[in-house]
């Protein structure tokens, strides 16, 4: 049978859908490349809502709220028309079908559509304990982090001395895999994993915009299932929670048995989530909750102040940071010096994919406030450049450098070296030079009040394992961690 013969005007709508998808994909990339990542992440109601709940305050980003409202009224259009990760998968699924030229594929509605609801459940419940890892798998966060990683790995739009680091490479691979897999299994991510899709799917149950099937003219040819990348419709059933209104089925139906309409049940409609059982959903929710509780305990109560967890300047205290941070990577994306990288487990499991300053790849510059501007969640607060002036009396500190005199060239090997002192950006310098006993040389010593933990010294130390290392001590956001500061020397505390 000839495709596109049916449709009754739906072909034009489908073209519009494709145009809008490409527009939003271009828009998403524009945001990522023009320094406005926060607005892309803001599109996700999952991040906005869950993170707001976890943080215990009412921050729901307006754009995310609009997405949610549209879904409640009209269904899961976001996934099919707006989501750039959906569009990427749609493109590759389309290409995959053509390149593989598998022709007509006998398919059935996936038995595993319910997986993503388990993912969502496991994400929802930990919110009770004040932690949400929605950002691990939220498509807009995955896209932001993935583009940041691939950009660096491919050498696009990055500094020439960009260095890959563990978790960022994982981010790049995740995005690559996700898109590549869609060429073989169309919209694999959307159908089985995406917690945002699951959340919108659940919201879509309230919608009255439906695809109706006329049982009299339907011939059960299943052409609708063949063209549906999401696999949510066949001759017998249609899942309202799964449909992303790509309109392919409406255009392809040879007998015009399908129509888009508002209103009552249309014969083939399945108005429930494609779950195997309620029991598995509950089990997943409980498992997620238990894991969440354990994570928070391990992180906040037991670990104290991890020495290698140097948060960006402007970061709120850790307990609040973990609740607020979207794990979206907007700060990493916007950092002009690529010093912000994703955490693996330095801050406990709950901190995975949150940002830290990695001084093995770069260092934090004093005349920069981009991360504070870029953060959509309030985990990193905007900060004034006044607290970053080299000679300010109230600096914003992220950590404190210490010198390992058993490795440091002048101290340990009687070799002249001055690099840490040279690069130290504060005035007076936090890394001073003092006479080394028994030698003609001067060696570095850290002034614990001047040092702000920018990491320039650690980055430029010529030794492969630096002899000067920054730990989280003295960070402004944690007065309890001010090990070498007293009273007024503490400067500004985290906002």
């Amino acid at each position, binding site marked *: 049978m000839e495709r596109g013969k049916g449709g009754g005007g739906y072909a034009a709508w489908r073209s519009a859908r494709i145009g809008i998808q490409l527009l939003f994909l271009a828009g998403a990339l524009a945001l990522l490349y023009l320094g406005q990542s926060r607005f892309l992440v803001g599109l996700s109601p999952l991040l906005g809502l869950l993170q707001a709940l976890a943080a215990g305050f009412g921050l729901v980003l307006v754009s995310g709220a609009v997405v949610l409202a549209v879904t409640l009224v009209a269904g899961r259009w976001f996934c099919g028309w707006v989501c750039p990760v959906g569009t990427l998968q749609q493109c590759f699924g389309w290409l995959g079908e053509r390149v593989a030229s598998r022709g007509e594929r006998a398919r059935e509605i996936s038995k595993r559509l319910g997986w993503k609801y388990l993912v969502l459940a496991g994400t929802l419940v930990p919110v009770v304990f004040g932690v949400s890892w929605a950002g691990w798998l939220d498509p807009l966060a995955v896209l932001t982090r993935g583009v940041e990683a691939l950009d660096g790995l491919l050498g696009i739009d990055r500094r*020439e001395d960009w260095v890959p680091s563990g978790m960022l490479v994982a981010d790049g691979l995740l995005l690559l895999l996700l898109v590549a897999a869609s060429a073989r299994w169309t919209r694999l991510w959307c159908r089985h994993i995406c917690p945002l899709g699951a959340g919108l799917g659940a919201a879509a149950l309230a919608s009255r915009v439906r695809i109706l099937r006329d049982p009299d003219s339907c011939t059960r040819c299943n052409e609708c299932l063949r063209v549906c990348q999401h696999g949510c419709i066949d001759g017998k059933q249609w899942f309202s929670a799964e449909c992303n209104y790509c309109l392919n089925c409406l255009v392809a139906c040879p007998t015009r048995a399908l129509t888009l309409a508002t209103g009552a049940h249309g014969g083939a409609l399945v108005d429930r989530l494609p779950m195997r059982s309620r029991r598995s959903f509950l089990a997943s929710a409980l498992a997620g909750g238990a894991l969440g509780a354990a994570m928070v305990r391990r992180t906040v109560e037991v670990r104290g102040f991890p020495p290698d967890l140097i948060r960006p300047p402007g970061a709120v205290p850790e307990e609040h940071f973990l609740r607020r941070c979207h794990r979206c990577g907007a700060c990493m994306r916007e950092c002009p010096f690529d010093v912000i990288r994703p955490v693996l487990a330095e801050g406990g499991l709950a901190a995975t994919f949150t940002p830290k300053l990695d001084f093995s790849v770069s260092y934090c510059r004093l005349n920069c406030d981009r991360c504070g501007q870029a953060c959509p969640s309030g985990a990193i607060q905007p900060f004034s450049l006044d607290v970053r*002036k080299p*000679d300010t009396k109230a600096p914003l500190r992220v950590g404190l450098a210490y010198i390992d005199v058993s490795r440091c060239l002048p101290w340990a090997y009687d070799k002249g*070296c001055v690099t840490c002192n*040279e*690069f130290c950006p504060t*005035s007076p*310098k936090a890394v001073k030079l003092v006479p080394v006993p028994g030698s003609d040389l001067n060696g570095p010593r850290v002034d614990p009040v001047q040092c702000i933990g920018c990491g320039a010294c650690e980055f430029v*130390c*010529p030794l492969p394992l630096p002899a000067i290392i920054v730990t989280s001590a003295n960070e402004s956001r944690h007065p309890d961690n001010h090990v070498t500061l007293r009273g007024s020397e503490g400067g500004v505390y985290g906002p």
Partner: protein
Amino acid sequence: MDRRHFLRTGVAGLSAAALSSMIRPAARAEGIAADLAVVRGKSVSAAVTRAVEALGGIGHFIKQGETVLIKPNAAWDRTPELGATTHPEVVATLVRLCKQIGAGKVIVADRTCHDAKKSFQSSGILEAAEKEGAVVMFEDLTYSARTFGGEGMKEWSLLDLYINADKVINVPVVKHHGLSKMTCAMKNWFGAVGGKRALLHADIHTTVADLAAACRPSLTVVDATRVLLDNGPTGGSLDDVKVMDMVAAGYDQVACDAWACTLMDMKWTDLGYLKKAAERKIGETDLAKLKVEKLEL
């Protein structure tokens, strides 16, 4: 041994010691010109012009059609008033003088410590030099291995722009440095070498002397318009900066450093690399032996 003889033997000895491609000594102008001209004045542009005139004019150093490399100190992402980088007007004036005399390509380049573009932007050098028609180069700089044949530096990589230029003008800024006490003309060549520069600090006085022996500019113009007296080489506070409104120009970068250290209340004997320069006859450290012209604008 008179001064001229001293200089001549010094130059000849060095020519033998280092690769000929790296040495471009300028013959001293006969008659009127000074060895070192120090000009004090509020107008940076006028001071630079006057100092170069006192040495015999830019035409004495640069010929028509020649490719000129101007090497400022643009190492740090700092604004001009903080004294961590060469004053943009000093660089711009030299570009203008070269262009006026009919130089071919005038290149301004430095290997910075902070991010290259930011450093060139913040220092004001990028905008000022480009406005006068210079090609400002700081990204994708290339280096080639060279035999330095120094006391400490045997082989090291050197900026290709330096190797390929017909004439080189060294345009340092005088300022405090934690390890070498002062950085000015001789140490400015740290910005013209490749490789892992941090390793050159191990014996910095020998290294700076080796660099100055190998990298010999046709002309050196020292920016002492404002001098960072402490917390160098980065600075960051105006409290450490003293406005001096001075510019010096000289044939001999060693003499330039010997003069510059007096601004920081030091004698040349206080600086290890100047003592080495004197021992190895890389240049003249005794200002009394030179014709120093001091001018007020």
